[in-house]
């Protein structure tokens, strides 16, 4: 949380209801969100579709009016201001480049409408295009750009206005995997360079873990957890976070009691679990559970073992294929094994309140 000075974005009791279709029961998209985002921070709103993360972003931008609550930008309450009077810019999911304007005019647009002198606008637009490595594309029509290039034009068009906060609505969703991974690194580098606060919306937990200073996990319109990627991944605050971020690997209370004597829901990340021969001795400080390998999934660099525990329930263990081949690991299907993990790597998961 930002304690030094005013937050770039502060949300207070933010709530949004949409009129219900037909019979009129309103749908609650965002159900009381409080959040502080510090200057220069890269914050990701993470959640499944329909969890309210995009609606929160749209309320910060001003496209949606909150049903209740306030949006405060750098100490100024902007809840009642229209989008064109807010110091934020958005990179849209579909990029929303103006098809009738060339790349340079797209990037200039925000400067032109806010009465920046033409020569200066052109200068700034050119350097913004240079910053996203698109020199020479000034005269191109958006229709004649690849997905990755459009994405970068959209980024330049937003950043050129030097907003207090840059909002990004799943901007990498439409790109293929290779390009997406490349853009993740690039986006993070640009953000570090310009020092602008980024609020990034995604449903991709890996993207969130890779890029963010902090992650805000959403479910059904509520914030489930706010924390650094490591905190969210290693110490999920709720059952939902534990299952949504990373591979869900939950021991139900019955199994947890039998295996490790823990009361309540318990979880261990798959990569923390070692697969040992049945009957092997547990290493010092380790906990273990025996079971039968139900499934072996070979994923190249690693192998995923799905193990049905004798105590009930199943755990997934991820092993690097450092000295094993696919032949070796595939032979494990149906074998009895002992799973072991270090005590401190397991964590209790609070039960969902509802």
């Amino acid at each position: 949380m930002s304690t030094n000075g005013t937050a770039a974005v502060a949300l207070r009791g933010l709530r949004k209801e949409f009129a219900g279709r037909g019979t009129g029961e309103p749908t609650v998209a965002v159900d009381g969100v409080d959040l502080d985002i510090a200057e220069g921070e890269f914050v990701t709103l993470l959640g499944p579709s329909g969890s309210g993360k995009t609606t929160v972003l749209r309320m910060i931008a001003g496209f949606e009016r909150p049903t209740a609550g306030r949006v405060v930008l750098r100490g100024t309450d902007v809840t009642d201001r229209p989008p064109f009077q807010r110091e934020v810019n958005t990179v849209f999911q579909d990029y929303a480049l103006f098809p009738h304007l060339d790349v340079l005019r797209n990037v200039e647009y925000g400067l032109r409408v806010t009465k920046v002198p033409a020569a200066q606008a052109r200068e700034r637009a050119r350097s913004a295009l240079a910053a996203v490595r698109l020199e020479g594309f000034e005269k191109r029509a958006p229709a004649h750009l690849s997905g990755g290039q459009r994405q970068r034009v959209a980024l330049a068009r937003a950043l050129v206005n030097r907003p207090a906060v840059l909002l990004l609505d799943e901007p990498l969703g439409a790109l293929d995997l290779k390009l997406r991974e490349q853009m993740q690194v690039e986006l993070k580098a640009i953000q570090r360079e310009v020092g602008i606060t980024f609020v990034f919306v995604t449903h991709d937990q890996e993207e969130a873990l890779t890029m963010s200073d902090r992650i805000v996990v959403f479910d059904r319109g509520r914030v489930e957890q706010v924390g650094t990627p490591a905190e969210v991944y290693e110490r999920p605050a709720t059952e939902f976070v534990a299952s949504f971020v990373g591979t869900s690997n939950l021991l139900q209370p019955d199994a947890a009691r039998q295996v490790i004597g823990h009361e309540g829901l318990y979880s261990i990340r798959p990569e923390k679990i070692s697969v040992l021969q049945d009957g092997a001795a547990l290493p010092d400080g380790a906990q273990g559970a025996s079971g039968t390998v139900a499934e072996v999934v070979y994923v190249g660099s690693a192998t995923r073992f799905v193990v049905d525990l004798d105590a009930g329930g199943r755990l997934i263990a991820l092993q690097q294929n450092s000295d094993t081949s696919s032949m070796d690991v595939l032979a494990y299907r149906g074998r009895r094994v002992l799973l072991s993990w270090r005590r401190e790597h397991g964590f209790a998961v609070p039960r969902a309140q509802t």
Partner: protein
Amino acid sequence: MTAAAWLHRHVGARLALLLAAPLTWLIAVYLAPLGLLFLTAFWQTDSFTGLVQRRLTTANFVDVFTEPAYLTALARTVGVALVVTLACIVIGLPMALFMAKVAAPRWQPVLLALVLTPLWASYLVKVYAWRTILGATGGLGLGAVVLVLTYLWLPYMVLPLYTGLTSMRASLLDAAADLGAPPGRVVRTVVLPLLAPSVIAGSIFTFSLSLGDYITVQLVGGTSQMLGNVVYANFSTDLPFAAAVATLPVLVMIGYLLAARRSGALEQL
């Protein structure tokens, strides 16, 4: 070999079979009469007997382009068509904008139906109704013609505008506002340029329908005449001359369509 297999191998025969009926219709009902009209315009009428003589002359066109009364009628017709088209754009744009982008989705089809309802009533009934209203206030004349034609053709403008706006991504409008453009500026810099093809598509309807109208002019136009009235007046007495006059709106329309094609608007129809 079955007929289907034979057709599959003979692309030309397939096309001929597919297009024979529509092409026959197009040629027999549209293009041939238009050619005949054009041909008739070069014939003449015997001034004694009043019978059409099939001897070629350019006298009809010379008359049309030298007689000030006809030139005035031509200018008036094109002028009225332009003003009506402009009025339809000015009135239709905010209507379509509201229907497509402001109104709740479930109201959109209702509003569209409301805009189209006037088309369910007979043209003559509507024009006579206007004649009664305007006649009572003594408002007959060219202004009345513009008013009534605008009323009549407005749906033909609203429809393509509405369609154009519906297919316009909402994120473009959000993006413009997000980048700092107030609503008026969004309309001017994003909506209108992207809507230009739809505007032109609509204007082809309003312009050509206005260009050819003569009943409205006769009923509410007072003494002012448009080309259609000149055609109507000469129709029984001097058919070749009437044909020559009737050719003019066709030529104007061809010019308009050529201009429209250059803008790419015809793909939006």
